[in-house]
C-alpha cells in the first residue's frame, strides 16, 4: 500500500533555531494517526509544512504520491485540514463560508455542500453569521470545510480543543468511521494523551522537534504489562529482597514496583514472607496507560493531563 502522506527527513529552521529536526513519517490510507507531544513540541509546525503554509528547510513531503513543493496544487487537492483554531470569516454566515471554500476546489457540488452541512449537524444555524456560533459550532464548521472536497487526507490540529466530552466522543467516533469506511488517512495532533489512546491506530511521540517513537497504540499500552505493584512494609527491606530476583525494582510510597514475569510472583512473595515482610496486596502496576508512558518518555514537561 502506498502511503497517503510521506515525510522524508523533514527539518525546519526558524531564526536559526531548529524547530523540526529530521522527521520521517509514512501514514497510510484508512488509519487514524496521532501526533502526540507537549506544547511547543512542533506538532503544529509539522502540520503547517504538510498543508503548505510553511516551506520545509530541508527534506520533502509527498501527498498521495505528489511532491508538495513541485506539484503544490495537485498535492493539496487531496488534503483537508484545520490548523489550530478554526478561524472562519465571522462576518459571513456559515453557508457563505462554505460557498467560499467550495469555489476554491474544483468539482464540489451543491449536493456535497448540503451533505457536509447535514453531516456536521449545522443545518439549523448554517445561515446565521459565524460570529454568533459557539466554539463547538465553529469546530464543526471547520470540520465541514475540511471535508468539503472529499480529501484523501484529513489533518486536524488539536481537534478536541474546546469541545465538551460528548462532542469529543462524537468527533472521535466520526474520525474512526471516516478512516474505516471511507479509507481516509486521518492525522490528528494532541497533547491530551487519553484522547489519542482512544482515537488512534498509531501514534508518533514528538518532542523538541523530533519523533522519538512511532508505535501502534496496542503495542504502546502493552509495554508495561509485566509490572506489578506490591503494598508491603517495610518497603526498604522489601526492595532489597526483590533485588535478589530482578534489578527492575523501584520504591513507591507504600510499597514497591517490580517488573517480572507473572510466574515469578509466588517466588517473590515467599521470599518476602520468609524475610518477615508484611504483604498486603499485589496488583498490576497502575503505570500502564499511555499517559504514564508518555510522561516517562517525555520527562513530563508541559503536559496537561485530563
Amino acid at each position, binding site marked *: 500500500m502506498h502511503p497517503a502522506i510521506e515525510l522524508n527527513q523533514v527539518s525546519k529552521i*526558524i531564526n536559526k533555531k531548529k524547530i523540526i529536526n529530521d522527521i520521517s513519517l509514512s501514514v497510510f490510507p484508512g488509519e487514524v494517526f496521532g501526533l502526540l507531544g507537549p506544547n511547543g513540541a512542533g506538532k503544529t*509546525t509539522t502540520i*503547517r509544512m504538510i*498543508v*503548505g*503554509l*510553511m*516551506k520545509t528547510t530541508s527534506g520533502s513531503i509527498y501527498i498521495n504520491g505528489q511532491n508538495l513543493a513541485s506539484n*503544490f*496544487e*495537485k*498535492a*493539496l*487537492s487531496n*488534503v483537508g*485540514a*484545520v*490548523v*489550530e*483554531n*478554526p*478561524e*472562519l*470569516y*465571522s*462576518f*459571513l454566515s456559515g453557508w*457563505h463560508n462554505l*460557498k*467560499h*471554500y467550495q*469555489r*476554491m*476546489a*474544483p468539482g464540489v457540488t451543491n449536493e456535497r455542500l448540503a451533505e457536509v452541512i447535514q453531516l456536521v449537524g449545522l443545518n439549523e444555524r448554517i445561515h446565521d453569521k459565524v460570529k454568533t456560533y459557539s466554539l463547538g459550532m465553529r469546530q464543526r464548521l*471547520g470540520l465541514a*470545510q475540511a471535508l468539503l472536497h472529499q480529501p484523501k487526507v484529513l489533518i486536524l490540529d488539536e481537534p478536541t480543543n474546546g469541545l465538551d466530552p460528548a462532542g469529543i466522543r462524537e468527533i472521535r467516533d466520526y474520525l474512526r468511521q471516516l478512516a474505516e469506511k471511507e479509507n481516509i488517512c486521518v492525522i490528528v495532533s494532541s497533547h491530551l494523551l487519553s484522547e489519542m489512546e482512544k482515537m488512534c491506530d498509531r501514534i508518533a511521540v514528538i518532542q523538541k522537534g523530533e519523533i522519538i517513537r512511532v508505535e501502534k497504540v496496542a503495542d504502546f499500552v502493552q509495554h508495561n504489562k509485566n509490572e506489578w505493584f506490591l503494598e508491603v512494609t517495610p518497603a526498604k527491606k522489601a526492595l532489597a529482597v526483590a533485588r535478589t530476583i530482578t534489578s527492575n525494582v523501584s520504591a513507591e510510597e507504600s510499597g514497591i514496583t517490580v517488573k517480572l514475569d507473572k510466574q515469578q510472583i509466588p517466588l517473590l512473595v515467599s521470599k518476602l514472607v520468609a524475610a518477615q515482610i508484611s504483604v498486603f496486596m499485589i496488583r498490576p502496576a497502575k503505570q500502564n496507560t499511555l499517559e504514564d508512558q508518555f510522561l516517562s518518555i517525555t520527562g513530563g514537561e508541559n503536559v496537561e493531563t485530563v
Partner: protein
Amino acid sequence: MKQFKQLVHNEIMKIFRRTATKIMFLLLLTVVIISGLVFRFMIMDNTVDDAAAGENGVSINIAAENDELSPGEQRQLEEQLLLQQYYEAEGVEPLTAEHVWNFVIANADTLSFITMFTVIIAAGIVAGEHTQGTIKLLLIRPVKRWKILLSKWTATMLFSFTMLIALIAFSWIVGLLFFQFNIGPSRWIEVVQGEIRDWHAGYYALIEYGLNFVSVIIMTTFAFMIGTVFRNTSLAIGLSLVAMFTGGQIVYLLSQYDWIKYVLFANTNLIQYVYNNPMIEGMTMPFSITMLSVYFAVFLAIATITFSKRDVAE
C-alpha cells in the same frame, strides 16, 4: 480562468458583505449631497453674481487696457474676452453654474473619498486575513498563492470602480434634483494656452474622472503592497494617506531639482497634461504614464513575491 473568476467572486463577496463597505457607500452619497447643497446655496449664488458682472464686455475691454493690472489678472481678462468672442461667434451658451454636467465636473474632487475608501479596503484585504487568522484556511486550498493575491487586487479594483460609477451616478441624480433638471446645452469651453478648447461636457467629465482614477489605482496598489508586506492594516492606511496628502506638496517644494520627475507623486496628477501645463518643465504624458506603469509593476511584484514566499506562522 474559471478558477480565477471564482477567486475574484470570493473576494468580492468578502468585501461587499461587510457592514463597513455599506457604510462607505452611504458616506459617499452623503458627501455628494452635502456637496450639492454647498454648490446650490453658496457657490452658485456667487457665480451668478460673477456672470452678471461679466456680461458687460466693454468694461472688460477697457479694464484689459488699463496697465494698473498685474500680468496674471491681465491674462485672465484676455482669456475671458476670448471666451466671450467664441460664444458669440459660435452661438453657444456657456455651461451655466446650475447645469448638471457642471456639478458632475466640479464634483470630481470627491474622488479623493474613493481613494480613501479603496485604500482602506486594499490595506486590509490581505493584512486582515492575517490578523483574523483566516489566512490559514484560505492558503491550504489547491490554488497557487499568486493567484489568490491577484484575485484580491482585482477585487479591490472592481470595488473601486463600482465606487466610481456610484459617485458619477450619485452626482448625476443629486445634480438633477438640486438643479432643476437642467440638461440643456452641454459644452465645456476653456482657454488652454491661449487657445479655445470646446469639448462636450460629458467627454470632459470622462477624461477628468478617468485621469484622476489612474491615481486612485496607483495609490491603492501602494496600500495593497504595504498591507501585504507588513500584514498591518493601519500602517498601510496611514502610510498611503500621508503619502497621498503630502506627496504632491513635497514634489512641488522640490520641483527645481531634475530628479524629482522620477518621484511617484510628480506623475500622479495626469490632468495637468490636459491643460498642457505640467508642474515641472519638460514632463510629458507618455513619460508620466511610463513612470506610473513602472511603479505599479514594482508594487505588485513586491507584494506577490513576499506573499508567495511567506511562511504563515501566526
